[in-house]
């Protein structure tokens, strides 16, 4: 197996007395799109800047394609392209100039691919960056990154200014990139995008990775909402370790169940004689709210 493009263990970064990253772990495997999630200010952009060699880690091990991004930033960057969350471009250069400039500084870009991407994203490359809207500045950065011949894309909230049509174009482009066997680190708040694109996700909070895995694995750690009509409420239900927030009126019960305890709890329910049953798996929103919110300790297995 090849070395993973991104391998971070125990990363610590402090700014004065603020501990922005506090022992962060993150691995992006070859060929996967890795979602990087977390509330604002949790350290996503700091992690990315350390990965790019812009910030110097205080402790921990950071590997980019097996190399040290602080020492060999330039060499390693030949193999990656980056789209910042806040795209700031030179106000007096045109979008086309910026795409060419960034491409050449990365070691050249494919002109046909560039033309195709400019066309797909509907970008006017003759306008000065000063007059671009946020979405259009993002398109410039995206075209520059996607037109490059690289193995890793580092994208920091790349679609926050794009309209839904452009977002679909972006999603297609990422799919094509992955199909070539390349990897993507995608920081995003748009959960639908994450669900659609990401093979695995890492959730960070206050500078630490609190959860990492495939979406299915993460779902497994959270609760399913169950509503059932029963002939009678079985005795074992209220006391079951996997059942939470139980509410019942006569023959109707509603509760949340740890997804891992779903099978035994359903066994208990059957004793009551099920007449109707709805089970709703956690939505991504619920999942992330749980991780982002204050109840994070509860779900730790």
């Amino acid at each position, binding site marked *: 197996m090849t070395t993973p493009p991104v391998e971070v263990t125990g990363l610590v970064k402090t700014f004065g007395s603020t501990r922005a990253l506090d022992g962060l772990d993150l691995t992006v495997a070859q060929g996967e799109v890795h979602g990087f999630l977390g509330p604002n200010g949790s350290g996503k952009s700091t992690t990315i*800047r350390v990965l*790019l*060699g*812009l*910030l*110097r880690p205080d402790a921990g091990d950071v590997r980019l394609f097996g190399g040290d991004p602080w020492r060999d*930033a*330039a*060499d390693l*960057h*030949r193999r*990656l*392209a*980056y789209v*910042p969350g*806040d795209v*700031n*471009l*030179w*106000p*007096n*250069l*045109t979008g*086309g*100039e*910026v*795409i*060419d*400039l*960034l491409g*050449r*500084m*990365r*070691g050249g870009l494919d002109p046909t691919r560039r033309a195709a991407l400019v066309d797909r994203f509907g970008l006017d*490359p*003759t*306008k*000065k960056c*000063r*007059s671009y809207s946020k979405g259009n500045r993002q398109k410039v*950065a995206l075209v520059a990154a996607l037109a490059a011949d690289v193995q890793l894309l*580092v994208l920091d909230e790349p679609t926050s200014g794009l309209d839904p049509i452009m977002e679909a174009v972006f999603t297609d482009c990422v799919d094509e990139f992955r199909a070539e066997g390349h990897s993507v680190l995608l920081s995003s708040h748009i959960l639908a995008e994450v669900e659609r694109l990401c093979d695995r996700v890492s959730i960070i909070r206050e500078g630490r990775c609190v959860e990492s895995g495939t979406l299915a694995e993460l779902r497994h750690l959270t609760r399913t909402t169950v509503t059932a009509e029963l002939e009678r409420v079985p005795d074992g239900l209220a006391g079951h370790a996997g059942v939470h927030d139980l509410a019942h009126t006569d023959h109707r019960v509603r509760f949340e169940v740890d997804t891992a305890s779903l099978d035994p709890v359903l066994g208990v329910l059957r004793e009551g004689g099920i007449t109707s049953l709805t089970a709703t798996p956690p939505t991504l929103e619920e999942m992330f709210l749980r991780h982002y919110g204050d109840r994070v300790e509860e779900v730790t297995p």
Partner: protein
Amino acid sequence: MTGAGLLLRAFLRRDRWMIFWWVLAGVLLYWTQAISVAGLYATQEEFDTAAELMGSNPALIAMAGPDRALNTVGGQVAWQSTAFGAILAGLMSMFLAGRHTRAEEESGRDELLRAGVVGRRATTSATVGVLLVANALLAVGIAVSLVTVPLAVADSVALGVGVALCGMLFGGVALVAAQLTASTRTAYALTGVVIAAAYALRAVGDLGRPTLTWLSPIGWYQQMYAFSGLRWWPAVLLLLAGVLALVGAYAVLDRRDWGAGVLATRPGTPHASAALGTPVGLAWRLQRGAVVGWGLGLFAIGLSYGSIGNDAGDLIGDSEAARQMMVAGGGDLVAGFYAMSMTILALMAAGFAISSATRARGEEEAGHGEAVLATARSRTEWLAAHVSVTVGGTVLVLGLGGLGLGLADALVTGEGSSVWQFTWQTLAWLPAVLALTGLTRLLYGVRGRLATLGWLGLAFAVVVLVLGEILRFPDWLRGFSPFEHLARMPVEDFDPGSFGVVLGVAALLSFAGWFTFRRRDFG
């Protein structure tokens, strides 16, 4: 106008330190002049002799102003401080005007304000309020400080009021510029050109073409004749021009779209030229406008100095005092004049060089540096690109100044060798200029935001050069200015040793800057 009062209070709060430092610098400019001259001469005869010498030196006339009552303390203050005072007030007002209007609009912050209960004219009106406050403080500070020296009250007040009116006028020009262009940088450049033109017009005017003086606001200020037969009516010209500028700014403001300038932004090229593909190409592209602007400016100033240089001897020839200076200085007057011209050109070139050296900081702060460093370019390459453009640009700017000087002299005297000789002699100041950029680079390397302090190096060099003799600075203190170590050609012979040493110091400072820069966080 809704919301202007609230905005004014917020602006003043934001600007309070900035205004404080500018006003303090302005007041000190006048006040130190007064007290240093007051204690300088033991007898009036000595003063008369010195005054005669100064008044007959065309380079000084061109730099400061017309020869009027130079043998009095008040006359000296008016002569030495007014031109620079007007420039200082102009720059203060320009930055105050720009930062609240076009800079806020360009960044989008003003959009947030304007979405509130705030009228179209509120931002501009509050900015005018800030300008009034800052310039009034400057006027009061100058007048009060001069009265305490003590100097005549009416004339002291006139110096204060005059400089404040200059400040308001240039502030008004900056507000007009902010309406014309969509870029803050361009607005500053336009205003800077107006201030420079005002200074240059009066310089040439004072040397013998009075009509040109009357085209310059700084000329109007000096024509108030403070301490040499004060008259107030030229102040009315300043006032009228200032009002006109403000009316113009409002007229455009009422007609233009938010965020847009009057000068249209043309579509550019869809592809980058071959040169724009490396950090050097990028740094050059970002700075070429400044290099060309400064280069042409210094070329023009060199031309104007060179066109009068050969007459320096004739103008001063009869003067007893001048002969004394010739004996003391050990060189001939023309050479002395050119040595001074070259020093001034070098100091101006240092202005370009330091602003160029702080450009890396600007790129880092704006987030543009991050985009470059995320590509396959190292920090060292990125910084080296900025350094090479600073060095190359400085050579160009300084060389063009020397070329202008030599070209004009060659045209006047018919001696073609002046062209390359003066160019080379002006370029010989390069190490001193580069040492100042080296200092800036070291400050930047240690911490990005310290880079701006590099300007203090230039300020110190100017103070040492202008006041070092008068205030009798000790040698060790003067030694900190790199300009003190190089040979003053053509009065002195070229000294390769000091040239090499100062160049070495510049390189060492740059190296230290690179060394620290590589080790710190970026962005």
